[in-house]
């Protein structure tokens, strides 16, 4: 099992550009999450999903969109990139009935 994979690993965007961060898990987990980690800070929840077709906002959803058309994939969309979105983005997944979230390696995004 590859676990949780994220692409790209690094990306530099210009202000106003858009992009999609990809996240895939091969563990057939129901729950998936997107977090961001700013320098010197903890992770903050952006969006989460409890299953295909169901998504909900986390603590810091502004400026982002998500979709969950399959169990495996949970892409995060930035429509109009802003410098405040410079961060490391982590995707995670969790199985129903279990207590541990499994994290991907992260995507480092810089908006200039």
């Amino acid at each position, binding site marked *: 099992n590859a676990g949780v994979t994220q692409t790209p690993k690094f990306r530099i965007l210009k202000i106003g550009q858009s992009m999609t961060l990809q996240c895939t898990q091969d563990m057939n987990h129901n729950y998936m999450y997107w*977090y961001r980690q700013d320098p010197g*800070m903890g*992770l903050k929840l952006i969006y989460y999903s409890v299953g295909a077709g169901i998504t909900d906002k986390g603590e810091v959803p502004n400026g982002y969109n998500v979709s969950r058309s399959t169990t495996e994939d949970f892409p995060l969309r930035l429509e109009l990139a802003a410098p405040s979105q410079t961060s490391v983005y*982590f995707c*995670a997944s*969790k199985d129903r009935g279990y207590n*541990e979230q499994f994290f991907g390696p*992260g995507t480092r995004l810089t908006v200039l």
Partner: protein
Amino acid sequence: DQQVKQNSPSLSVQEGRISILNCDYTNSMFDYFLWYKKYPAEGPTFLISISSIKDKNEDGRFTVFLNKSAKHLSLHIVPSQPGDSAVYFCAASREASGAQKLVFGQGTRLTINP
């Protein structure tokens, strides 16, 4: 409003000694607490957890203590090993096995010196 706080940004401990990492929380609705370990350029990995109905959970060299009245938890690592050098995050949730929307502390960088 920081609901989960780790007030020590860094901690340095000699190999073989005990490492104690602390975490405080403010939301009394939190019911489940976790510790994650993070190496550079990797995602966090789960270390140990504790439910609010317990005051201690042990897994090998790692023990988590929970003091609900003080809204405080701590992670003890005994004995500390060089491979334990990493950033440790405390996290809290209002539920254990459901959607589990985690709230993280800022992290403590632990360095184990030989």
